């Protein structure tokens, strides 16, 4: 009798961790983000948004009756650190990973996740080649550079411009976008009167502007980043030239207006995926309410919001496929997920894992320096 009691107690003690484990069974989702380094502001915002969404989900009961736990690793915006971060994450029992920002950083982690059979949903990586490798578990909520080129070309055509000048800055992103737009515009009989690159990091672009003005374009497409765009606008205004400028998504930064000055920035247009504060879908609205309540601010960058979208589609895939197996999640993302309402609009993925549909919108800077979404 005594022996039997002892055995029962022992068995109970042995089973206890199992029981506790059962009660705390969790779905672990990884987040790889630049929490330090030069893109730290992006990474911190990504984490804030994913944390907020996970908290909301857990309060509502989690997924498949289990709580979701976010496991974050810092990739420091550096390919080598990203390779380490993805290896560490791969050993921590995650079913899928969100991230990261920057194409070359994402590239460093892609094969590691693929070999470990972990679904990866990238958020701020727009390089075309990332999804051309045929990796089964790779998806992204951010658009591709060629889509932006297409939208840029279409926007300029729709506005009825016949003579276009294209200026880039020789970075992979800017050059790729400029090439893409040039090819598409040439096909549609738009005359490219200028195609060349400036050197980023300088202060005086008046020599370039003088040369541009001599070619008399009706519009200038600048595909580089916001610091140069701000200076170009300011110096263009200084020389009394009022040609319209159109920029790519790398000019979507409020600092553009402070560099150029409100009067010089007014009328500048750029292409960018929309931020949720500009969308009136119920998903975007309720997200904004929750975000403002928790962080007392607006999310500054669209790339961080795309991390929230990545979280949402992963949860939807787990829910929809009723499983946490990578093959089922990937299969569901590819075929089962249609017209999913995300924070940045409707989400679905094609065979390569790229986001389907036109995501880019046109923004215009108004007299107060605000970015206004164009209808």
């Amino acid at each position, binding site marked *: 009798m005594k022996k039997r009691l002892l055995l029962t107690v022992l068995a109970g003690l042995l089973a206890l961790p199992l029981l506790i484990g059962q009660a705390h069974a969790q779905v672990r989702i990884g987040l790889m983000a630049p929490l330090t380094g030069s893109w730290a502001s992006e990474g911190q915002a990504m984490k804030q948004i994913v944390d907020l969404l996970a908290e909301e989900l857990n309060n509502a009961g989690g997924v498949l009756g289990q709580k979701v736990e976010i496991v974050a690793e810092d990739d420091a915006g550096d390919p080598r650190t990203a390779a380490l971060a993805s290896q560490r994450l791969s050993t921590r029992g995650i079913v899928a990973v969100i991230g990261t920002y920057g194409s070359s950083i994402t590239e460093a982690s892609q094969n590691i996740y693929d070999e470990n059979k972990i679904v990866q949903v990238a958020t701020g990586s727009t390089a075309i080649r990332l999804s051309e490798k045929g990796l089964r578990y790779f998806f992204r909520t951010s658009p591709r550079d060629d889509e932006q080129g297409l939208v840029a070309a279409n926007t300029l055509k729709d506005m009825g411009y016949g003579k276009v000048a294209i200026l880039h800055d020789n970075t992979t992103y800017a050059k790729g976008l400029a090439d893409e737009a040039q090819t598409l515009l040439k096909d549609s009989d738009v005359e490219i009167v200028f195609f*060349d690159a400036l050197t980023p990091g300088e202060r*005086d672009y008046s*020599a370039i502007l003088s*040369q541009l003005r001599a070619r008399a374009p009706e519009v200038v497409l600048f595909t580089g980043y916001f610091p140069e765009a701000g*200076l170009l606008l300011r*110096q263009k205004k*200084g020389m*009394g030239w009022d040609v319209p400028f159109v920029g790519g998504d790398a000019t979507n930064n409020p*600092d553009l207006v402070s560099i150029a*000055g409100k009067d010089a920035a007014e009328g500048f247009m750029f292409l960018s995926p929309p931020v949720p504060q500009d969308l009136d879908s119920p998903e975007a609205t309720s997200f904004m309410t929750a975000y403002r309540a928790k962080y007392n601010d607006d999310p500054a960058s669209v790339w961080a919001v795309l991390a929230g979208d990545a979280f949402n589609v992963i949860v939807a895939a787990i829910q929809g496929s009723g499983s946490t197996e990578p093959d089922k999640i990937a299969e569901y993302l590819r075929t089962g997920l249609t017209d999913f309402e995300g924070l940045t609009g409707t989400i679905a993925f094609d065979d390569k894992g790229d986001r389907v549909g036109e995501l880019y919108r046109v923004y215009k800077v108004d007299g107060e320096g605000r970015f206004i979404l164009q209808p």
Partner: protein
Amino acid sequence: MQLFLEQLTNGLAVGGIYALIALGYTMVYGVLKLINFAHGDLFTIGAFLGLTLLLSLGLTDHIGPVAGIIVLTLMVMGLVALIGALLERTAYRPLRTSPRLSAVVSALGASIFFQNAIMLIYGARFRVYPHDLLPTTSISLFGVDIPVMRIVLFAASLVMMAGLYYFVQRTKTGTAIRAAAIDQGAAKLMGIDVNRVIMYVFLIGPALGGAAGMMVGLYYGQINFTMGWVYGLKAFTAAILGGIGNIPGAMLGGLLLGVIEAMGATYISLAWKDAISFMVLILILIFRPTGILGERVADKV
């Protein structure tokens, strides 16, 4: 023709800034045979100090923009000169008898230190000078519209350069600097306090570089902690182009480099602008190894 004239003025305006910074490189090299790699960062410090003083003192409101900016520029020059002298005292003087390479490494270290210090104090984001400070009117000359401020900027850099030239050629201290540049040992024997001369050099060069930083900030608006790198490199090139160690050479080299860049960008290729500038530099060094106005250095070696 109009484009040519326009690019000429663009090139001269940028070249004036290059020349001001180049003077700092060339003076230090003339006396110490040292390339002061931290000089570009002193230029950045000038830009940031200028902004800080401008925003915190409110001088332009009290005594008007013109007087305010002149006073602020003088303050910036003074402060950056002090930092320059401090740099010499801590990073270069202890190494003066060491092999020359040690001082070069020390200069690189100082540059990294300054850059990180500026980033930690002011942050990594772009900072912007107030927009409404300077008038934006232009005047028309030979069919070319030139912003008035650009002429003022160019004139200011010419005045500073002329002042330096007068100082070095006509004053006693200037003569001592020139003497120390030719032969430090002999200068010492003639009763010149070489340490003092070097201190002067490290006051004047950084003061001009700091003024250039403030001018760039005022005119172009946007500043950040890495801005000294591009300007420093260009000014260093200008100093070599004109003949390093030679003061009129640095002025000529700076103006020339600005014009070459503008013309190269216009008539050859925009993307190749920098490559063209450096090609010209290489060509000049092949055919005239001492730079355009450089003297023969055989007797120094």
